[in-house]
């Protein structure tokens, strides 16, 4: 958490940040379900302050750059990225957490940006397809999508690229069931799954590695 974000009146006293579960699960014996952790934390009025419904100042990192902006609490991460920060890689398709076109990484974990309020991502790090690589310096996964012609209309592609990078970060050489499970949250109406499978299928993908 940065001092700037704290000054914004919006602090994030996250006890458990994304990715820390494994490390914490062994050391939780004192607090979990006993209320001790809650009681131990300082009870201060600021943290329980209600903000909004008007714009609230927040700060978050997107593709390595820190942004400070004001958004209403009801603005989703997807709409904030696209409409306020002009980061238009994540696509607005179903807007109901089903199709995967809005997939981004939040602190390294794949999420549906349509189903996260932007204010909930304050103080966190977001990576979109733009943050994985650029046309001049493509990420391996992006290059593999080109090599395998793994897109048609292309609208689902940014989400698929991010989900694929997340899958390969978790399983560098995924089995067929792992590919199905790892990309089960993304849909392609054009039916380019054959090319996408080729991207993910390890050696056949030309040395693709996770993001």
């Amino acid at each position: 958490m940065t001092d700037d974000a704290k000054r914004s009146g919006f602090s994030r006293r996250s006890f458990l940040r994304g990715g820390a579960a494994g490390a914490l699960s062994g050391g939780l014996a004192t607090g979990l379900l006993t209320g001790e952790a809650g009681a131990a934390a300082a009870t201060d009025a600021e943290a329980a302050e209600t903000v909004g419904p008007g714009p609230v100042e927040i700060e978050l990192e997107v593709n390595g750059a820190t942004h400070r902006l004001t958004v209403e609490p009801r603005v989703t991460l997807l709409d904030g990225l696209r409409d306020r920060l002009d980061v238009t890689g994540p696509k607005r398709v179903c807007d109901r957490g089903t199709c995967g076109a809005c997939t981004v990484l939040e602190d390294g974990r794949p999420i549906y940006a349509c189903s996260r309020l932007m204010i909930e991502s304050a103080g966190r790090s977001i990576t979109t397809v733009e943050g994985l690589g650029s046309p001049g310096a493509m990420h391996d996964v992006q290059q593999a999508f080109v090599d395998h012609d793994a897109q048609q209309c292309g609208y689902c592609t940014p989400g698929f690229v991010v989900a694929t990078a997340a899958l390969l970060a978790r399983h560098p050489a995924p089995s067929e069931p792992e590919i199905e499970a790892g990309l089960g949250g993304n849909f392609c109406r054009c039916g380019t799954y054959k090319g996408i499978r080729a991207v993910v299928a390890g050696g056949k993908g030309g040395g693709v590695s996770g993001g």
Partner: protein
Amino acid sequence: MRPFGYAAPATVEQAVGLLAAEGSEALAGGTDLLSLLKDDVERVDRLVALRGVAGLSGIELDDGMLRIGAMTTLQELRDHDGAIAALPALAVAIDGVASPQLREMGTIGGDLLQRPRCWYYRRGFGLLALTADGRSMVAEGDNRYHAIFPAGQARFVNPSSLAPLLVALGAEAVVHGPAGERRLPVEALYQAPQTAGERENTLAAGDLLVGVEANVAGSRSAVYEVRQRRSLDWPLMAAAVTLAGSGPRAEKARIVLGHAAPVPHVAAAAGDLLSGQELTSETVAAAANAAVEDARPMSGNRYKVQLARTAVRRALGQAAGMEI
């Protein structure tokens, strides 16, 4: 979405205080609630964000007692080798949520307290979906995914992936309310509403589900879900079973159906029939039949009765480690 306020408490006590106010709703992973708000099915004055509340996330396994914080994500639980080794059926239930993004965002508390998927409810006709003159849209309309054990006018099904397993295990829910902490069986979180103002869960204003606890030592559990397709969707029917004792005999059997009733449906007669019995294809088939004996399917969901029988049979077979 309509405008709403937002509060991010740091402690359980703060969260409970905020949730006690009218128009406040808890925000966990958001994968269900945000859709309901976008569709104007639910309205809130203020969301109380639980993401930063201390002590709500994490997993503990201590001498066979499994404790899971309500804000633990499905993926964190799936990645906890100790919990999965102690209770392999958890992996089946979690993997049924066939989207990494939903597993990363969705929480244990959110899974247990997600709102029903009934398409009449999701279209704004309310949980009971009654016409102005009190007739059931569900009974008279398309009810292919609805309850085979309707409870009064409540004909939706409980959609939780984890509730059937937790109920079969005899797990407890830990709830923190304005009067402090209390424990109740997980099945007591649920009710079948009978009036328009009632919800499908029993939590009152200011109540916060803090976590669940289950004794996973010495019992064998299994979950079997029947799906229309393998991709991301809710199951048509699910059965969870827990057998106490080892070998072919079950000292005690608990059988719970998901997606069958407005609440996780405890098939008590079927469990009783097996308790103290040796599991054979005959006793298992008898239990499967007993599980649906009092089913009252509607015009379009008779097929779910057979799915329930099959799910019970296969879950029992898996829990007992036998071919049935």
